C-alpha cells in the first residue's frame, strides 16, 4: 500500500464568514432552558424545585450514573418549570427553565476548587460539568480517567483545534481570546496527571486556514518543547478523531477499541480552555461562544451566550434574511437539525446554522451509478457503495460477513460519502444502519455462544 500522508480528502467550501468576528456578549436572556441530556451518558437529576432562587454557576442537577455530568444554572433568577421536552434524537428529556432576574449574580459561595492529586483533580473536572465540546459531549474527566489504564501507555495528547466543519469559528475565537487558558489547561494536566501524562507530547492540531490563531498559539507556547503546534491541511474531515490520530501520529484507529488504547487522548481545544477556566475561578461551564451563520442569516456573528439561551434569542441579534427552512445545531456536515427555533443551545452547541427554504431540502435520491466517488472520498476507504448493496442480503450471516468485508465498522461518520454522491443517496445513514446491524448481530452471536457453552 502506498503510504498516504493525509487521509482526509474532501474540499468542502469553508464559508468561515465569521472568522474575523470577535464574539459579542448577548443581552441577558429573559429565560434559559437547561436540558438534562447535555452530555453523552445518563440524564442528570434535578436537585432544585420550582420557585427556588438560583445564582449563576449554582449546581441545579447532579450527575446520575456513568458518563453523566452535572448541570449548573447559567443565569441568576427563579426556577419556573421542570418539565419534559422534546429533543432531536426523539428520546426526550427533562428540562429546567430559569427565569432570569437580569442581574447575572454569581454564586456568592463560589470558589476555585481545591485539588491536590490526580483523583481530586479528576473530581474537580467532573464537578465543573466539563464535557467534550467538539460534539460528542463525553465527560472530560472520564476521558482522562481512561488514560490511567496502564495498558494504554498514553504518550500523545491531541488537542483538537481543527474545526474542519464549514461555517464554525467558535474554537478559532476561543484560541484567539484565551490562549492562556489553553496553556493553563495543559499545565494542569501535566501537573496532576504527571504519573500518566508527564512525558506526553501535547499536539495542538489546527487547520492551516487559521493563520492568526496559529501565530498566537506559537507565541504562547514558545520555549515549551512538550507542546507541538501541528498544522493540518484545511481539508475535511481533519477533526474526526480517527483521521486526526492518523494524520498527526500515523497510528491507525481500529474499530471496536477504546481510543486511548492507541496511546493517545483527544480533547477539544474549547473543552481544555473551559476546564482551565473552572479550575482557576470555580465558574463552571455556563456560557460559550457560538457561531450564528447560514444562508438565511443576515449578519453572521460569533456570540457569547449563556447555555440554555433559546436560538430565537440569538437570531434576534444577527437578524434573518428570510423565513428559516432548517435550523442546524453544529456544522452542516455533522450537526443536528432541530424541530424548533425556540430550542435552547446546549454545552456542545458550537454553531447554529439557519438555512433558507431553498437550501433546506436536498435533492431526491436516485439509483447508484457506480461512480465510486464515495469510496474515493472516504477517509478510511470503506467500500461505501457496497454497503448500500449488501444491506439487501436476506441471510443475516451472509450479510454480516459481507458488511465486515466492506470495512464499514471503521466509519468515522464524516458524511463525505453522502456529500459527494451524484445520485444523492443517503450513504451515511446506510453505514449507520450497517453498524447498528453488526452490533446487534455480534450481540446475538455472543448470546448463542454462551447458550452453547452452558448447554
Amino acid at each position: 500500500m502506498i503510504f498516504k500522508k493525509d487521509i482526509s480528502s474532501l474540499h468542502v467550501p469553508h464559508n468561515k464568514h465569521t472568522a474575523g468576528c470577535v464574539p459579542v456578549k448577548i443581552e441577558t436572556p429573559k429565560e434559559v432552558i437547561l436540558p438534562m441530556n447535555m452530555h453523552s451518558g445518563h440524564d442528570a437529576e434535578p436537585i432544585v424545585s420550582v420557585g427556588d432562587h438560583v445564582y449563576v454557576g449554582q449546581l441545579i442537577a447532579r450527575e446520575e450514573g456513568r458518563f453523566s455530568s452535572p448541570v449548573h444554572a447559567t443565569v441568576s433568577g427563579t426556577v419556573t418549570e421542570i418539565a419534559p421536552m422534546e429533543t432531536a434524537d426523539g428520546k426526550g428529556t427533562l428540562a429546567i427553565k430559569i427565569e432570569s432576574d437580569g442581574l447575572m449574580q454569581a454564586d456568592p459561595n463560589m470558589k476555585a476548587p481545591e485539588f491536590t492529586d490526580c483523583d481530586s483533580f479528576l473530581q474537580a473536572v467532573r464537578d465543573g460539568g466539563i464535557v467534550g465540546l467538539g460534539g460528542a459531549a463525553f465527560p472530560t474527566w472520564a476521558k482522562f480517567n481512561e488514560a490511567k489504564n496502564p495498558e494504554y501507555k498514553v504518550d500523545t495528547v491531541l488537542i483538537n483545534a481543527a474545526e474542519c466543519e464549514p461555517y464554525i469559528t467558535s474554537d478559532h475565537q476561543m484560541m484567539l481570546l484565551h490562549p492562556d487558558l489553553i496553556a493553563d489547561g495543559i499545565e494542569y494536566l501535566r501537573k496532576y496527571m504527571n504519573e500518566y501524562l508527564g512525558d506526553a507530547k501535547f499536539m495542538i492540531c489546527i487547520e492551516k486556514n487559521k493563520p492568526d490563531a496559529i501565530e498566537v498559539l506559537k507565541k504562547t507556547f514558545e520555549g515549551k518543547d512538550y507542546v507541538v503546534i501541528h498544522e493540518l491541511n484545511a481539508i475535511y474531515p481533519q477533526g474526526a478523531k480517527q483521521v486526526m490520530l492518523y494524520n498527526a501520529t500515523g497510528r491507525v484507529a481500529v474499530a471496536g477499541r477504546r481510543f486511548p488504547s492507541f496511546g493517545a487522548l483527544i480533547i477539544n481545544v474549547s473543552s481544555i480552555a473551559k476546564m482551565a477556566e473552572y479550575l482557576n475561578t470555580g465558574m463552571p461551564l455556563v456560557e460559550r461562544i457560538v457561531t450564528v451563520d447560514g444562508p438565511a442569516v443576515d449578519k453572521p456573528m460569533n456570540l457569547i451566550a449563556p447555555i440554555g439561551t433559546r436560538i430565537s434569542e440569538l437570531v434576534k441579534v444577527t437578524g434573518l434574511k428570510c423565513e428559516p427552512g432548517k435550523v442546524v445545531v453544529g456544522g452542516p456536515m455533522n450537526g443536528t437539525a432541530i424541530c424548533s427555533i425556540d430550542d435552547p443551545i446546549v454545552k456542545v452547541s458550537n454553531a447554529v446554522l439557519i438555512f433558507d427554504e431553498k437550501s433546506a431540502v436536498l435533492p431526491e435520491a436516485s439509483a447508484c451509478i457506480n461512480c465510486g466517488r464515495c469510496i474515493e472520498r472516504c477517509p478510511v476507504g470503506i467500500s461505501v457503495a457496497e454497503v448500500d448493496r449488501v444491506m439487501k442480503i436476506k441471510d443475516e450471516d451472509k450479510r454480516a460477513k459481507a458488511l465486515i468485508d466492506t470495512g464499514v465498522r471503521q466509519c468515522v461518520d464524516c458524511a463525505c460519502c453522502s456529500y459527494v454522491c451524484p445520485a444523492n443517496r443517503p450513504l451515511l445513514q446506510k453505514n449507520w444502519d450497517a453498524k447498528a446491524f453488526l452490533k446487534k448481530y455480534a450481540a446475538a452471536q455472543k448470546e448463542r455462544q454462551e447458550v452453547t457453552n452452558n448447554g
Partner: protein
Amino acid sequence: MAKLHISSTPHIHQKGASTSKVMLDVVIAMLPAAVAGIIIFGIQALWVILTCVASAVLAEFLFNLCIHKKQTVGDFSAVVTGLLLALNLRADIPLWQCVIGSVFAIVVVKCFFGGIGKNIVNPAIAARVFMLLTFASTVAGGANPIKPEIEASATPLVTLNQGAEAAASIKVLDLFIGNHSGAIGETCAIALLIGFAYLVARKVIKWYVPTSFAATVFVCYFLFGGFNATFALQHVLAGGLLLGAIFMATDYVTTPITGKGRVVFCIGAGLLTFAIRQFGGYPEGVSIAILTMNLLTPFISDWTKKKTLGGVK
C-alpha cells in the same frame, strides 16, 4: 411560523454533483466527435445521430410509462446511450436499423435489468454487437468520407491487418484528423482527444483509465510488430479504440468501482482487443473486448476491493 425541515446529516451537498450533470458532461464530451463525424461523412451522419438519440430517449420514456416506473429520462443517460451508439455506426446505415439498435440498447440491455445503474453490460456496446450480428453488411466496416478526392477504400484496420508493409500506406496524420472510412465517431482522433481532455478536466473520468487501455494495445502491437512504434500508434488511432477507451471503458455502471479495478478492466480489454484484431475473424475487436470485460466486472471488483484503513480482514 412555517414548519422546519428535519433531516439527517449532511445538510449540504456538493455543488453540481448529480447524475444528470455527469451524463450531460459525457454528452458534451462526445459532441466534438459527433461534429467531426458530420463534417467527414456529411449530413447523413446527423440523421443517424438524431435518430439514435431520439429513439433511445423515446424508448426509455415509453418503457417507464408502460410499467408505471418513475420517469428517468431527465438524467440524460438515454441521450448518452443513443449518441454513443450513433458514433459507433456507419453514416450510410438505414435509419430503421438505428431505431432497432437504440430500442434494443435501452429496453433489452438497460430497462429489463432495472434501469440506470443496474445494467450488466454497456447498452451502446451490446446494441452495436447485436447489430453487427443482425445487420452485418451495414454495420461492419465503415462508410467512406464525402470528400471527393478520397478514393473509396477499406477501413484502416483492414489495411493494418495485412501487415506492417501495407500499413506504411496509411498516414498517421490522416488518422488524427479522421480522413478515412469508418464509423461516424471513431475516425477523428483529435475530436475524441478533445472529449477526453474535457472529461478529465471535469473530473468525470480519471486520465489513467482510457490511457491504460490504449497503452496496453500500443505495447502489444509494439512487441508484436517488431518494435515498430508507428505501426503500434496506427493501431491505437485506427478503428474504434479511442472511442471505446474514452467513452465505453469509462462507463461507471459496467466497470469496476475502484480506480485499481478500472485499470485492470482496461488492461484486460486492451489484451482482448489485440487478440481479436490479430487472431480473430473480425478486424475490429474493441466492442467485443469491452463487452467481455463488462461481464467480468463483478469478479474484478471483488479482486480489487479497496483495503480499509484499520479494517480487520
